[in-house]
């Protein structure tokens, strides 16, 4: 366990000039900071600032290109997550890794490198009890199934698990993104307890007000560099946002004229997804681009998924072109004229082993001929014209999509919903995730021309530049609710505050 003697003289964690590139593109250029024992240190930054790369290097999942990591003054090589665990570095991930089908105790012993080969059950229970009590989780029983716990309690079990493995350094990556207020409080209390025991805590969060509330010190990353490290006390959310964005916050361009014909609109009322989205309403007119601005867990992506029929438990009323949309199954939504572009291009988007041409026509096969027969000539012409529309190289039509760059893959994904007279609304979740600058501009042009062609376009994004560049109307979202709606007049700082700060007692 940690000796309390380390305070003062030597920081427990020293990050020294870390740098790391991916395929020649630097993600982290120069990051240094230190975390002392008992300190809660926040890592803040806009998307792409390099937070997760730093976290991955510190937890042994990525090797730095240059720079050093020192634990208690000793330079260490963290070659794997196990190696990091051996040295007492525990990571509580964005994605929960507790297994719902197992008990609390079983989850705690999962992946525990110190677990004896033969588990002595009584000792294990006692130890588990001790850790739970330590965390203030007296009401949880070691033999309770994790599936009976709330998301917040699961997160707490996850933290308890990290602690039970004799951690000196605990990294929490967005631990509260999907939690309610009350649940977040419990996580904070647990984090404070962990720090009080002499651990160094690195806390990554998008929620700036909770960062200021919880943490002792804040390091802000921007474009792969640590721009400032400062005590949290005396820092305001506004100041923090300025640090994160640098100067020159972008402004939303003048809004475009909407299609005056409201019969072409997508009308959403009382859209509700249990546990994710509450009472969402929007009348989206054809010809305009609507941007949903929200971090992970804000409900922005859930709006799109619900409309696309991928949330079977969603309730509410949805009308497109004055016709009700059966939005509880994807076939019904598609038939009503909704096309959806998922944020998971590989898992839920493209057919990677199939050719570009196949992918481009994948969702309109029944329209390429009569009686369910696919006309070969028509298929070829359609694929070629879509490739031209999406600015894809025509000589790659026969290549498997897998062989394309991320940008071109995304063009295929978006392109397959374009130029169809039966699609009236285009929904995109993170339309340019993992796409290079050039591809991004091309996709933005595609979306603009789709709107100009009379489609309702709605996208969800976490990237401020994208939201401001592309959105005619921006809805900021947090905790499953809309915070504000902007038709012009928004800038990066305003959006950031809406997306990250908790609403004042509403």
């Amino acid at each position, binding site marked *: 366990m940690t000796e309390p003697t380390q305070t003062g003289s030597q920081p427990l964690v020293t990050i020294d000039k870390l740098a790391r590139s991916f395929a020649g593109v630097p993600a982290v250029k120069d990051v240094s900071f230190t975390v002392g024992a008992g300190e809660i240190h926040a890592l803040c930054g806009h998307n792409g600032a390099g937070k997760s790369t730093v976290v991955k290097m510190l937890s042994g999942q990525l090797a730095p290109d240059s720079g050093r990591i020192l634990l208690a003054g000793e330079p260490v090589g963290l070659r794997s997550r196990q190696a990091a665990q051996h040295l007492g570095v525990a990571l509580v991930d964005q994605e929960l890794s507790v297994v719902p089908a197992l008990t609390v105790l079983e989850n705690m012993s999962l992946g525990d490198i110190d677990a004896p080969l033969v588990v002595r059950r009584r000792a294990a229970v006692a130890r588990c009890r001790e850790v739970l009590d330590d965390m203030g989780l007296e009401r949880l029983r070691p033999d309770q199934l994790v599936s009976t716990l709330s998301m917040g309690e699961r997160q707490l079990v996850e933290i308890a698990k990290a602690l039970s493995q004799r951690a000196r350094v605990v990294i929490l990556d967005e631990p509260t993104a999907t939690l309610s207020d009350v649940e977040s409080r419990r996580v904070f209390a647990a984090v404070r307890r962990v720090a009080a025991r002499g651990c160094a805590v690195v806390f990554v969060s998008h929620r700036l007000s909770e960062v200021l509330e919880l943490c002792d010190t804040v390091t802000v990353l921007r474009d792969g560099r640590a721009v400032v490290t400062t005590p949290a006390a005396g820092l305001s959310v506004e100041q923090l946002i300025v640090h994160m964005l640098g100067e020159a916050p972008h402004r939303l361009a003048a809004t475009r004229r909407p299609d005056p014909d409201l019969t072409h609109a997508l009308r959403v009322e009382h859209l509700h997804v249990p546990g994710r989205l509450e009472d969402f309403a929007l009348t989206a007119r054809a010809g305009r681009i609507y941007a949903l601005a929200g971090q992970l867990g804000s409900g922005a992506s859930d709006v799109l998924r619900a409309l*696309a*029929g*991928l949330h079977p438990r969603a309730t509410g009323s949805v009308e497109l072109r004055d016709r009700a949309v059966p939005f509880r199954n*994807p*076939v019904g*939504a*598609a*038939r009503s004229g*909704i*096309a*959806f572009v*998922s944020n998971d291009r590989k*898992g*839920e*988007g*493209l*057919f*990677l*082993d*199939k050719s570009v041409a*196949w992918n481009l026509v*994948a*969702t309109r*096969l*029944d329209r*390429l*001929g009569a009686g*369910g*027969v*696919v006309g*070969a000539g028509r298929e070829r012409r359609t694929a070629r014209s879509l490739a031209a529309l999406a600015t894809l190289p025509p000589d790659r039509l026969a290549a498997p999509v*897998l062989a394309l760059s991320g940008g071109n893959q995304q063009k295929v994904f978006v392109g*397959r919903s374009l130029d169809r007279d039966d699609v009236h609304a285009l929904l995109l979740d993170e339309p340019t995730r993992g796409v290079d600058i050039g591809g991004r501009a091309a996709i933005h042009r595609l979306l603009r021309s789709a709107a100009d062609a009379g489609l309702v376009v709605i996208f969800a994004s976490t990237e401020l530049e994208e939201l401001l560049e592309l959105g005619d109307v921006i809805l900021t979202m947090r905790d499953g609710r809309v915070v504000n709606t902007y038709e012009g007049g928004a800038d990066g700082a305003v959006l950031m505050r809406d997306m990250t700060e908790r609403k004042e007692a509403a």
Partner: protein
Amino acid sequence: MTTDLRTGPPVAPARVPRRRPGSLAVALAVLVVALVPVAVTTDRFLTLDNARAILASAALVGITAMGATLVMIAGSAVSLASAQTATVVAMVFLATQDRGLVVATLLGLLGGIAVTALQGVAVGYWEANPIVLTIAAGFALGGGAIWLSGGTPVNATTDGYELFNSTPLGLPLAVYVLLVLAAVAQAILRRTAAGRQMYLIGENRAAARAAGLPVGRVLVLAWAFFGLCLAITGVFLASFNTSATTNLGGTLTLDAIAAVLVGGTAITGGKGSALRTLGGAVLISVIADILLIRGYSTGVQILVKGVLVLAVVVLVHVRAARGSR
């Protein structure tokens, strides 16, 4: 004195993207080349009679395998109830012969389609696991067969079914039916919206769902076609054997899967074709034929078939795993 040329500056391996034939294609080519001398030196192999025998023995398994191909492409699913389904169809077909051949045939076909399409509904709409589901269906159908027949062979009261044993132009009718079904299956897969959607669903079901493709309907179609093929197999089995016992289907289930796999249709779904399956069925029967003529025992024949399937599965799987990285 002389510098060793081999220790010169390391030359980076040229990373030229090249279009290489799939390992499966290579393996099959090697196999065919290896078979030719064996075949030529085997007495009576290169005779018209023997060619007929090969086609005839490929026919029934091939017909079933055509349907199995669609189901495997559309969802990496196999049916473990094939033999039982064909058996039940055969019994229905024979037991209703007294109502006329047309009625008996229609009843048999409809029964096979209905039973199998129902499994398709469970797989397509309710996301049932096809292995578990078809094992259960196999038990139910097997039980049904015993109950229907009372454990004794089912015989027909008339011999109208003899029509199905006819041999136009010297080849069994089943061979023609196999060729027609292969053409139909190939056309469905390549040229209809539903067939193309089968490839897409097999490749990535989550993506197909998110895109709003009619996953359930397409899978039911695939299974219904499978049911048709199984029923046709059952009708031919009944006619050929003139009576149906509860184990009439024999090893049909695994034989059909073997033909599909040897043809190179990926067990992971999304890849394959009806023509490949036709090739697989014929290849298996050629090898069985050679072994038979050369006097090897049935045990050896089955062993070789097993090894062949194993080799192909490993090759296809390895190729797929490399391809997706």
